[in-house]
């Protein structure tokens, strides 16, 4: 199982994402200026400050050459996980609904938060232990999830809300406490919390590992 981790100018958590993916498969970096996904089985768009978050977070990265391939890959059913800045890029690219806005307290926030798994049947959550919240850190300035009310209703009805901040854990004012969503087809997943920083007992909780393992498990069934 080969994960491709995209690297833009300004990406910060790419090595962390590669290390996390390497615990469940193989991981290679994919350079923003290339047009080659190198036959990876899944794409991870990691966290950081691509292009300095200039204009809007993810607004410029979304037009990088590699993103042409990622959008095509996703359109054909390929699995994409967008973490933090990756989530922002997916929204800007139209791969996911909604947008991420400035945190309601206007500040960068780092915090270990508790997340409820709302949809345990996605490709990214199916291997998780059912009913157990995930302890995963958030670290962002622009993490407040927004979509118009009617869209939010639709997301909830369709099971596209995957993760919610547990009660009193919402760090940024995201509407309906939404921390992670998937697209209608279920192959693109965006989340603000950083699962790659919850895979090693030495550095924190290991609750994030299950998201990568679920993806590997989902795809290994379809690998020849």
């Amino acid at each position, binding site marked *: 199982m080969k994960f491709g981790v995209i690297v833009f*100018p*300004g*990406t*910060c*958590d790419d*090595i*962390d994402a590669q*290390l996390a993916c390497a615990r469940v498969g193989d991981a290679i970096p994919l350079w923003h200026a290339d047009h080659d996904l190198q036959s990876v089985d899944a794409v991870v768009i990691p966290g*950081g*400050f691509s*292009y*300095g*978050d*200039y204009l809007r977070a993810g607004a410029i990265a979304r037009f990088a050459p590699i993103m042409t391939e990622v959008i095509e890959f996703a359109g054909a059913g390929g699995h994409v996980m967008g973490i933090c800045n990756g989530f922002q890029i997916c929204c800007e690219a139209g791969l996911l609904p909604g947008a991420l806005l400035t945190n309601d307290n206007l*500040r*960068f*926030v*780092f*915090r270990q938060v508790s997340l409820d798994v709302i949809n345990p049947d996605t490709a990214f959550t199916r291997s998780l232990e059912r009913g157990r919240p995930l302890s995963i*850190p958030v*670290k962002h*300035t622009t993490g407040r999830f927004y979509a118009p009310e009617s869209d939010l209703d639709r997301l909830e009805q369709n099971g596209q809300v995957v993760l919610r901040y547990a009660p009193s854990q919402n760090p940024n004012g995201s509407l309906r406490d939404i921390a992670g969503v998937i697209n209608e087809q279920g192959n693109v997943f965006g989340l603000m919390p*950083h699962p*790659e*920083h919850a895979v*090693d007992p*030495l*550095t*924190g909780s290991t609750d994030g590992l299950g998201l990568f393992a679920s993806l590997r498990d989902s795809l290994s069934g379809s690998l020849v």
Partner: protein
Amino acid sequence: MSAPAQPLDGFQRALDLGLSADEYARIVELLTREPNAVELAMFSLLWSEHCSYKHSKLLLKTLPSDGPRLVMGPGENAGAVDVGDGWAIAFKVESHNHPSAVEPFQGAATGVGGILRDIFAVGARPIAILDSLRFGEATSERSRYLLQRAVAGIGHYGNSIGVPTVGGEVYFEAPYEQNCLINAMCVGLVRTDDLIRSAAAGPGNLLVLFGASTGRDGIGGASVLASAELGEADASKRPSVQVGDPFEEKKLMECSLELLRRRTLVALQDLGAAGLTSAVPEMASKGNVGIDIDISRVPLREADMEPFEIMVSESQERMAGVVEPSRLNQLLETCAHWEVEAAVIGEVTNTNRIRVFNGPELLGDLPLDVLVDGCPLYELNPAPAPNPLYPPPNATLESKDATATLLHLLASSNIADRRYLHEQYDPVVGSRTIRRPGCADAAVLTLPNGTAIAIAIDCNGRRVAADPYRGTIEAVLECAANLACVGAQPLGLTNCLNFGNPEKPHIAWQLTESIRALGDACRALEIPVVGGNVSLYNEGPDGPIYPTPVIGLVGELPDPTRAGRLGWAQPGDAIGLVGDFAPHLPASELAKLRGEPLPDSLPEVDIAKVQATQLAIRDAVRSATISSAHDIAEGGLATALAECCLAVDLGCEVTLEEGTEPTELLFGEAPGRFLISGPETAVAALGQVIGHVTPTALQINSADTQIDVPLARLREAHASLATLF
């Protein structure tokens, strides 16, 4: 070819630029002519306090800077220590005090940017940042503003570039009201064989400038801001503040590290204070070569910049490198890959001179031994102040009740929960952080060879003000104690000496005594000084800051899985008090809250005894025989107990022996004492068992006094800094 003579009122201009009359006379004497305008601008910066260390260099030379683990000592962009298996840790602390008083967000941000560049300039990948901050009392609106903006600026830069901010400290004291202190420490990881120096070499080699374009940022910054007291007119200094771009620096950092990995460069230097004017001459001087530089080839951000502006610009995110002509293409390709602009701007020569050209026109021609090494070094005239220098603090605590006192201490700005600052920093990027802020007395990060390093930064300026010699000894011991509590052995020390105007005898005395103590402490503990920074002239109309020698230590621990924690592990564990017990109220936090003036001196410290206790703690943590260790510092024993409870939401019940005055016992301060917890026998073997961990409340019994407080009340008091953000 000699430099064109330009008629100018050199003398007056020199004074306006911050040089003294004697310094100007010396320049003229050594050059055997008057300098022209560009040359004078260069002298004014290189001979400023900030660049030349003219009031501190003679003293700094007395510090010990050798040792078996030292691989790069003072004098380079950063120092470095060996951490085994071919790895080294490069680190340094620097100040950005004066710019931050003028514009705290950008001042703090560019302070972080500057120290990051110093680290990757020696070839190390930055892996951690710590910040050491001081402001006026938290009741001051201005200090709250500076705090908010400085923390936001540090977070902005560190988070955006992807280097974790893993620790730090902040103090609120009236003497810093007009002169805040913003010190930033950076730690980097490098293969020892890959460490690079800044000495230019090889006449015929090319000088390359890469990174951001050059604009008018910080024009005159080094001379205007860092070498002068801030007076009424500092609003007019606002245009000098540099603006940082962490995105640019991220690209620059990756580019620089790749250039170094591929051995593309002969030498590398970052551009900091005084920009090209300090970087280029220093590279040439260190290498005993000369450099010709053509400013018409410098990529500019603004049109119509004057030649001297280009030379003194402090635009951020720029590096200067020396490259052999045959490797130039490789350099340009690497820069293009990382979207970093690069331009050849000069050439190494064998003239031992720096020549500044604008195209074909020669603008300045100076011998390096005069420009770089000709600055006079001043002996200080130290004499202790005849009268107290610092007014007593305002009293904020009247009550004598022990519980009320403890709650007041926990809520006091120097002790309260720093979570509201930490939360604005990313401590985990890089996946190395084992101990995040608030979990232990020092930050701990893993290394590729399976061991770990610990990092701490400390100084209690008020105690140094009471006794510059003993207060500085205490600062070093405090920092070492924090490392011991996570199981680490110090490997090297960096320091940032923040003081007032050294031309005043009482400040000279503070500086002299402090550096003497720093040397004595380092020799006693066998810790080499790897480098550091000096920030002088931190005073205003209301007087000088407390003398503040900020100490940064890096230590090693062999087994990351056994890194210590400060909070209790579980109810039932024994709690122990370790170390000689001589708590002392004068100069303590409680004394401050009671509005007491500073004492004339601090009690003597037995360094050997404290060190022995630190080693015992370190070994106990490393062997995992105890479950927690916490150094007793500000607020004394009762505060330390509360901190151990609050870190993990557990209580304790302890009984203290009679025989010492209860207030002193509970709240007195002195180095060399620790709180530990764990199994009864292990705790008893190391120290004195004073009680046990309980589920819910903090209970301290001592002669005539009982403190019994539910955790919720402690937490409420401890959360007082929330209102500052």
